[in-house]
């Protein structure tokens, strides 16, 4: 099985790796790069547990080949925190008990980040629409939606603070 040499930017770092043509991006992240944060739930793009961001857009990594990552900027759940500082989404998920078993949480965090990066002030409806591709079986989504709305507000006020600080 011939392997493909791929160079991509993953969570802010340039990474070079070899993968088989038949390995999905999900398999590549988990089995080749040891980034096991993204999860396999269905392999058909119906659960979103494998969600990663590619050039700022959320996609199912199970439906992309590792080879297709060439030249792309990929963000996984492992790339959301800055050093030891959690992203407000991660913090709000914890404060709101927006996870029970936690298996869907990486996918939700990535999808939520993609949402609030583009839409800093989402309504409940907009949050629900943006997260409709991520299944959760434990929470009934209530606390997840609340966490995302709170996180969006926190990001906005944090941004306002740092702008204020910079003046």
């Amino acid at each position, binding site marked *: 099985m011939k392997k493909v040499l791929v160079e991509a930017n993953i969570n802010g770092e340039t990474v070079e790796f070899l993968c088989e043509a038949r390995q999905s991006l999900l398999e590549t992240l988990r089995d080749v790069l040891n980034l096991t*944060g993204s999860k396999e739930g269905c392999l*058909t793009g119906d659960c979103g547990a494998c969600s990663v961001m590619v050039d700022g857009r959320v996609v199912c990594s199970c439906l992309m080949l590792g080879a297709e990552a060439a030249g792309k900027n990929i963000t996984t759940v492992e790339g959301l925190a800055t050093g030891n500082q959690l992203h407000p989404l991660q913090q709000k998920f914890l404060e709101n008990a927006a996870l029970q078993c936690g298996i869907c949480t990486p996918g939700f965090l990535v999808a939520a980040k993609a949402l609030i990066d583009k839409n800093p002030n989402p309504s409940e409806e907009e949050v629900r629409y943006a997260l409709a591709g991520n299944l959760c079986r434990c929470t009934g989504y209530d606390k997840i*939606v609340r966490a995302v709305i709170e996180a969006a507000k926190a990001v906005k006020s944090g941004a306002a603070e740092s702008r204020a600080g910079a003046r």
Partner: protein
Amino acid sequence: MAEATSNRKFRVIGTRPIRHDGVDKVTGRAKYGADYSFPGMLHGKVLRSPHAHAVIKSIKVDKALKLPGVKAIITADDLPEAPNKMQQAGEMAINPSHLSRNILARGKVLYDGHAIAAVAATSPHIAEEALKLIEVDYEVLPPVMTVEAAMKPGAPILIPDLRNNEEGDKQTNVAQHMQFKRGDLDKGFKAADYVVEREFKTAMVHQGYIEPHNAVAIYNNDGQATIYCSTQGAFDVRSLSAQVVGVEPGKIKVVPAEIGGGFGGKTTVYLEPLALALSKKTGKPVKLVMTRSEVLRASGPTSGSTIKIKMGCTKDGKITAAQVWMAYEAGGFPGSPVVAGAMCILAPYDFENLLIDAYDVVVNRPKTAAYRAPGATNAAMASETVLDELAEKCGIDPLDMRIKNGVKEGSAHPAGPPYKRIGYIQTCEAIKNSPHYKSKLEGPNRGRGVATGFWFNAGMQSSATVNIHADGSASVVTGSPDIGGSRVSMAMITAEVLGLEVTDVRPLTADTDSIGHTDVTGGSRVTFATGMAVYEAAQDAVRQLRERAAKLWERKVEDVEMKDGKLTAKGNGVPPMSVKEIASKLGRTGGPITGRASVNARGVGAAFAATCVDVEVDPETFKVQILRCTVAQDAGKAIHPSYVEGQMQGGTAQGIGWALNEEYIYDDKGILRNSGLLDYRMPTCLDLPMIETIIVEEPNPGHPLGVRGVGEVSIVPPPAAVANAIYRAIGVRMTELPMSPPRLLKASLKRGGAADAHSAAAD
């Protein structure tokens, strides 16, 4: 046993701290079963039957073995013959023959997806290619897919040596018939002013955990083995795997990984014995992970069912009699939750005259496994909609109907002594007084429905240790895998008793070597029973701490107590000492302190929930939207309210999926058509509103903190609540689950509903 905990003030219990494992889970660091990897590890894949019902005439593996990279293949011949009778396996009662045959088929395959062989190879891709090279010769038999078909005289027999408790030596597909009888049924119906009789059909549904099954086994050359897996019960994995593979349980250590959902479906074994057997054969670690298709085809869903129910009441709404005939699909091997369903179906109502006939029926579907209050949701769909009809006939508010007939302390309990203090009526009243129920629902095609539910909850065995460290922190070790955030509650109980901050207590779920026997995380028992063990272990530590303080202060131990979180000497003269302060002195005063406890928990408190749902039904497409939803549940005492709310919301969401769109769809050959999450339709974020929760606290007198298990009962009322709401929205009484749009259209046409008018207009 316990004083009314509603009177006690707690420092930690009842607050909402961040869970200790939270940071790992939001950063992707937490290790679930499929995340484990070991040097030299092989990958396993399972060959599964493409037929619903067939005799296996031969299995040839030689071509597959020759494929480069394949290291071993096992079939049922590699497993010991298992006895065909109920036996203890560890702490469970199982039929070893059925369990073993479900793990790897022997002689016959009984459902589409039934495992036949397992391959270990150097990559998962090679393992899957090898499956294609295994040659199986089948004699295909006609599939039996419904309880009606299975119970018909002359039906094809699934298990030739299956006998039930009634038909002597006759071959049958009815594994068990149980009857519950009380009072005088005829007299009861004669006393009724109104009688409603309906027949219900509910479809088979799956727990739907997002994480597929997984297992990694390492069998060492000294005969000691370790299994890593996502499971609800490490000790059960140990005993069942040992039983199936023919290894001593004492030689197996099971390490429970983090688990991505279970809901009862991960309380048994599928891949663990295969991984163990393959590792034994190859001498290497072996990892198996199910695909979603395998999860749906071959891991246990819960039963579809047929339930006929007849209920009578007086004109002022008192139930006088009820009769039930219920048959549940067991799947390929016996063991549906029909008996539990039979004990739940009339459990919330206080009346005398009943007759219930319950049938456990094998069909060519996967062997069913537990699913959150197993058996009760099917039952409530029947009882709670018929009760709704009776309420309407009597002109009584549906919640008042429940309150009027509801069980309370002293009422007869279906499965044991009369109820102690319970909260059924209180949950109904909580809904009645809720902002939701008090609000007006306006607009066409909208309706509001309510329903209630009961679940026994379980006690069973748990062990716990609490270690006091020299720096004054503590660790609390249990054997209960954490599927919903329970470990933080264990830390909170420990912190409360020891006067510590919850951040100074580290909770840990241990492997089977590191903690005493602990039964599954299931049955709504962790906060109840493991919490009880933790409480007692912490109290055991307190006893020892009091002895040390007494020694230090040269006082009698009876004169030292734990008061407001500090060790305090009666009278005056000695300032109170915190656990932190005494911790550094432990070495000098006798050594480290470990509190321990093991319980076989008695005093289980029954669980009740009530759910209110507002729906809107599109009068042309019959698509149902859930507009608003509120659930009230008696938690006894909520240790961590956020996670209690989470259980209530999660169970409600699953119940709504069960109500509206989830079902197993088989074709006429018995092949599962929707073995993926595209067509097995679980609710998405966009399908649900916020789920309002009301935690009722009627303390359970059987628990030191008043705890009642909360994990299950919230799934019981929603299908009936949604059905009752649909009735009020468009005037159609549904008796089939799921209530998908095509079924609503059909029912509406039958009734001559709105759809008729539109079809006529288009002509």
